[in-house]
């Protein structure tokens, strides 16, 4: 589509949006007449658009009234309020969420409903929106990335080394054969080995 035809179509759309040909200014009508006379393809396009618009408005005119009048509706509204109807936490005064451009509608729930499972099943986006805050909740620092287990292993290793050291000091004396034997290379002190880190288990989310 050329720039000129795009501009022409945009002007036609604007003209139709502002009430159609009946509401158009004399200048707009003259422009449209001239364009249709000049371009047979545009003339056909305009004719089809005007017919579609007319059919649409006729259809719309038939679809304007609900079965209930305002008083009947009002009675139902107050009865619904008294019964706690739609007291589910959904905030439907927010921006409509269209998944498309084209496709189906997804969740409209701005926050979790009273029955979040139902909402999640019906509206993936709403479910995602509901879950995100939980996922984003920061975990306590010590529990993050398995650091707690590493810290525990290091502390256990330090305790073992210190215990072994103290034990060696208390049982050895410079004059005893035990102590001399203990200093022989053939009988080395038992050396504390660092405690191996426990195998990593899959992390589970915290329970709070």
């Amino acid at each position: 589509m050329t720039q000129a035809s795009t501009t022409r179509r945009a002007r036609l759309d604007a003209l139709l949006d502002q009430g159609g040909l009946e509401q158009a200014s004399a200048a707009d009508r003259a422009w449209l007449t001239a364009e249709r006379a000049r371009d047979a393809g545009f003339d056909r396009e305009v004719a089809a658009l005007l017919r579609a618009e007319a059919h649409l408005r006729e259809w719309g005119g038939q679809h304007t009234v609900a079965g209930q009048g305002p008083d009947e509706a009002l009675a139902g509204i107050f009865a619904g309020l008294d019964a706690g109807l739609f007291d589910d936490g959904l905030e439907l005064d927010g921006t409509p969420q269209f998944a498309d451009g084209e496709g189906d509608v997804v969740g409209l729930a701005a926050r979790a409903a009273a029955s979040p499972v139902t909402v999640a099943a019906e509206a993936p986006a709403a479910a995602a929106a509901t879950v995100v805050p939980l996922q984003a909740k920061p975990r306590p620092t010590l529990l993050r990335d398995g650091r707690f287990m590493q810290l525990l292993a290091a502390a256990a290793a330090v305790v073992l080394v210190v215990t072994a050291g103290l034990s060696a000091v208390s049982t050895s004396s410079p004059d005893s054969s035990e102590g001399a034997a203990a200093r022989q290379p053939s009988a080395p002190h038992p050396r504390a080995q660092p405690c191996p880190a426990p195998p990593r288990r899959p992390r589970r989310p915290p329970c709070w």
Partner: protein
Amino acid sequence: MDIADARTEMELLALAQSGDRRAFGQLVRLHHGRVAACAHQLLGASAEVDDAVQESFIRAWRALPRFDGRAKLSTWLYRICVNVCLNRMRGNRRHAAADVDDPKLPEPVADAESSGVDPLRALEQAQLYGRVGAALDALSPSLRSAVVLVLLQGMSHKDAGDALGCAEGTVAWRIHEARRRLRDLLGDLVEPEALAAGGGA
């Protein structure tokens, strides 16, 4: 201020926001027609229209404390109605296809003399409405919502953008695209060649 003193919509709104149901009832009476039309046009011939209208106003009552007056009350109510109808439309694509059976549409009449209605004309009209309803139903919800608000409810692009939570340019694009698709979907009903060949709709 009492409801007897409230003369403007803003005064009724202030009372309703403070919990006055009678004031809210007045607002419902003021806006019921346009909300009902919007629901009807979005849902087609669905039997859910009355329920959708009631739900829209019940949700509006619950949300009233959040209404800050930046948009028009009517625009805000349209937004709620669109959301309610979209929720009901989700997974429920059957309504418009049954448009020919809409009890509100004129039915073909067998006895033309006693009714004064041309049965052929009534039948053609019912078929036309069925085709238009089906074409609208074939549009995506975003396009259909824009069509209903702008072309059928007569909202400006700006107000429709406020109701749908998008820019004016987006509304303009949706209307443009919807027109193109409706023309294609209605095909033989609107194309000059087909009309000439078939004698018109």
